[in-house]
């Protein structure tokens, strides 16, 4: 673990893997909840956790460097189920990358338990991990100018669902009618770091909602 300074009152903690980042995130949330750590924002990412608004950065940095992380118990609470029609325009291309049929892509994807590793890009957009590394896919060489809201997509080791229409270079494998972000709802984001997710296939002709 490396603790890097990020300005006056923030620390970027770098760890060896995405799993370790998720474990560190869970541990930091636990310490903040019990009151032993005062931090404004805790932002997990691919290999790091950012601690922003730290009241005593030097002390916190020393403490983090000195201690091993306990393994995270799986987060309590249910799994978010996302209904999906596997009808994306890039399904055949992803199938070719994986060396399987398009139907097999749906079976593998829907058979995986995902977890939100981190969020970013847009409010409510989660980077979901869970697929084995052999299913990594590259981004599209030319990003689309508009990816429809509800698109279920793959890039690198991640799966994501576009909360609203936006440009994007991920490979689109399906569509959901589920609303990922609604600022009038509490919480506004359906997915936050640590949330477990399953994709549930629905018939390609019916509504995915």
């Amino acid at each position, binding site marked *: 673990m490396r603790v*890097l*300074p*990020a*300005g*006056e009152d*923030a620390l*970027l903690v770098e760890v060896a893997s995405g799993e370790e980042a998720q474990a560190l995130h869970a541990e930091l949330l636990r310490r903040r909840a019990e009151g032993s750590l005062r931090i*404004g*924002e*805790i*932002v*997990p*990412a*691919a*290999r*790091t*956790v*950012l601690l*922003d*608004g730290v009241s005593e*950065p030097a002390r916190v940095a020393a403490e983090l460097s000195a201690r091993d992380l306990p393994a995270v118990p799986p987060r309590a609470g249910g799994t978010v189920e996302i209904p999906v029609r596997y009808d994306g325009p890039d399904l055949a291309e992803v199938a070719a990358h994986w060396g399987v049929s398009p139907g097999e892509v749906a079976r593998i994807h829907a058979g995986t338990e995902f977890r939100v590793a*981190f*969020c*970013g*890009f*847009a*409010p*409510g*957009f989660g*980077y979901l991990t869970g697929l084995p590394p052999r299913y990594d896919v590259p981004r599209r060489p030319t990003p689309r100018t508009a990816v429809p809201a509800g698109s279920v997509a793959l890039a690198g080791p991640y799966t994501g669902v576009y909360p*609203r229409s936006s440009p994007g270079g991920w490979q689109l494998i399906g569509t959901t009618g589920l609303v990922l972000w609604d*600022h009038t709802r509490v*919480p*506004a*984001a359906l*997915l*936050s*770091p640590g949330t477990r997710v399953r994709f549930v296939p629905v018939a390609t002709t019916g509504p995915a909602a």
Partner: protein
Amino acid sequence: MTDRALVVVRAGALTTVQDRGRPGYAHVGVPRSGALDGPAAALANRLAGNAPDAAVLETTLNGCSVRPRSTVTVAVAGAPCPVTVDGRPAAWGAPVRVRAGSVLDVGAATSGVRAYLAVAGGVAVEPVLGSRSTDLLSGLGPAPLTDGAVLPLGTPRRPPARVDAAPQPAPPDELVLRVTPGPRDDWFTPAAVRVLTSRTYRVSPASNRIGLRTTGPALERARRDELPSEGMVLGAVQVPPDGTPVVFLADHPTTGGYPVIAVVRPADLAAAAQAVPGTPVRFTAVRRR
């Protein structure tokens, strides 16, 4: 409809509703947002008799015009600019009474970029996650003003400040940004860090609420591999592949994949909000306090 409202007569190049932003949601991808020149927005609110977290209008370069439907007190702070009511000169940087139906014009900035118009009672659009700020990156909060739009106002709580003029810092002729190196200064050559903190950059016209873009010598990377996405702080000096630094402002993305060579002290970012394109920028290295 209540008559406590503003009708937008001239929206200006980019006028947005801003308050102190929505911190605390970076982990779900929500930028902090909020007034870019926080002290100027707070001063405008103080002059108008508002609480510091009341929502104000942030204009860009050429101001805006509004017509209140009821008699209100307003105050303009930030970038110096001519203020008129029905074409007659009114005070900048002090409370001004505007009668119902009169047109208040916040003119083009004579220096600086962003003026702040506070109206007694505050702009009372519906808050999103506790803030009324327009967030241009993710589209949260009210859309930028358009001609003819109507903005509801809150109820004034206190009388306006009793001042004729309030001291305000002038927009910078040279923008000095104090930085502390890291977190990814080791992704650059030692020469790159020296270049950043010894050479002069200039504010690029491509700057916006997301980032202060610069032109100047490119910073050379020591590592060519791709940085996995990581959390970004306000004031982060991110270096995209073209090598010219971008200073992250209020609407910055919460995570990013380009290395951050240094971080600007947040106290220096109000001046960055007022630096016109072409302003020289010097990054000076300081030790962490």
